[in-house]
């Protein structure tokens, strides 16, 4: 190769190097965005086993459209007397569109008073957020909420 490198060559090399970095960054994007409902399904199977979730009792309160997915308020309420004989044991919140489908799992006792939690969650894209309540008798109730996201927060 010639020892005479012109300014144009150097610029070309810099450009190629920079383009390479860019290409790597773009190539990693699909991995980041790889979050599908089936990942959520796999996690749910691990969390609740083969219980058949029933509708009702669980209510997700959340906006229908989020401007930013960085910290979106969510409240989940489960109808339950919260007595020793009949209470919610665990409440799982699962995301269908985030890189990690698990959001949080809350473990209640009769001393929790009511099965209700509020927090803020990240949202990578427009998706469905699900909540599963495991009752003390072993039954599972579930709810879903679709939320549109304009700016990713993951």
């Amino acid at each position, binding site marked *: 190769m010639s020892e005479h490198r012109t300014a144009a060559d150097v610029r070309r090399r810099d450009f190629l190097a920079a383009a390479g970095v860019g290409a790597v960054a773009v190539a990693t994007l699909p991995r980041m965005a790889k979050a599908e409902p089936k990942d959520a399904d796999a996690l749910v199977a691990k969390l609740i086993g083969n219980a058949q979730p029933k509708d009702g009792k669980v209510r997700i309160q959340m906006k229908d459209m989020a401007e930013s997915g960085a910290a979106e308020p969510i409240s989940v309420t489960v109808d339950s007397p919260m007595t020793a004989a009949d209470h919610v044991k665990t409440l799982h919140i699962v995301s269908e569109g985030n890189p990690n489908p698990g959001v949080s799992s809350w473990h209640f006792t009769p001393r929790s008073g*009511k099965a209700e939690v509020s927090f803020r969650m990240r949202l990578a894209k427009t998706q469905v957020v699900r909540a599963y309540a495991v009752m003390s008798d072993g039954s599972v109730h579930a709810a879903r909420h679709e939320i549109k996201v304009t700016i990713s927060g993951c």
Partner: protein
Amino acid sequence: MPAQIKSRIPSKAAKDEIIEIKLQITHDMESGNRKDAAGNVLPRRIINKMVCTWNNEVVTSADWHPSMSANPFIVFYARATESGKITIKFHDDNGEVHETSADITVG
């Protein structure tokens, strides 16, 4: 920066009243999915567990994942059983435990 915890827990409650516990902790909740300018993955560091006890008996606990927002703000409830101390512990990925507690009089 040490994690700062702000809490709102009532100091008095009637017997069997359901009280609201509100907390905010300053924490980056680094998800482990982000990269710095050089393309290196920023290691995950989140609060992975929260435990609320009332006189050392667990009332509510939670496992958290990276989809929890930065500076978590949470609200949950507890049935006022007896006077004593409510303690909330946040377990960090790096092994630290951030803790806050409040005294409550019931009756």
